[in-house]
């Protein structure tokens, strides 16, 4: 039962343009959302997070938007750089369930020069 869904397995964007990665979730008890970035042969690295009481969080080139009514969040990367090429995982947690992270399947982003 996949509670966090990333429906786009891959995305290709030109350098300098905006990358938008999408994530949907089904569990209304999720109260914290995170994005992780993963390079090959490395573990996931935390990128940015957002609490369910907010609808936007920004950190440099990265912004996460949360639409609770639609159970949807997105990660915007502006401007995209070739070094951003990686797999991006959306994750969510329910603070009533031991804080385990529920991950999506990931979206592979390729930023071309």
């Amino acid at each position: 039962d996949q509670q966090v869904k990333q429906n786009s397995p891959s995305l290709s964007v030109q350098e300098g343009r905006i990358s938008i990665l999408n994530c949907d979730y089904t569990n209304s008890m999720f109260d914290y959302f995170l994005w992780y970035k993963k390079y090959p042969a490395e573990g996931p690295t935390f990128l940015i997070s957002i609490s369910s009481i907010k609808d936007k969080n920004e950190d440099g080139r990265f912004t996460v938007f949360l639409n609770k009514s639609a159970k949807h969040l997105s990660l915007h990367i502006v401007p995209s750089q070739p070094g951003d090429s990686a797999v991006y995982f959306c994750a969510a947690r329910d603070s009533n369930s031991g804080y385990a992270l529920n991950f999506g399947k990931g979206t592979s982003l390729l930023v071309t020069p």
Partner: protein
Amino acid sequence: EAGVAQSPRYKIIEKRQSVAFWCNPISGHATLYWYQQILGQGPKLLIQFQNNGVVDDSQLPKDRFSAERLKGVDSTLKIQPAKLEDSAVYLCASSLGSSVGETQYFGPGTRLLVL
């Protein structure tokens, strides 16, 4: 600050054999997690420790998987006997505590292939 260390990085075994993975979390991190990541999937939590106590092992296949964190620092995850479907990357992560805003830091993972 040193990151989460895992060993071995790669392991190939035959089905029905046993295997063990080791994890050393970031110094001072009380919470330790083991995740299984099957190819094409996101990581799935197997077990979570708070110090040396188990917080959540609801998704650990206890008939073949076991994990321990005896002194509240290092942890080992064992599979005995292994099945073909256990082929995956096993990720260890740690966090300072277990509150909702805590960031989990991941190690590089152990890639297991069961033949």
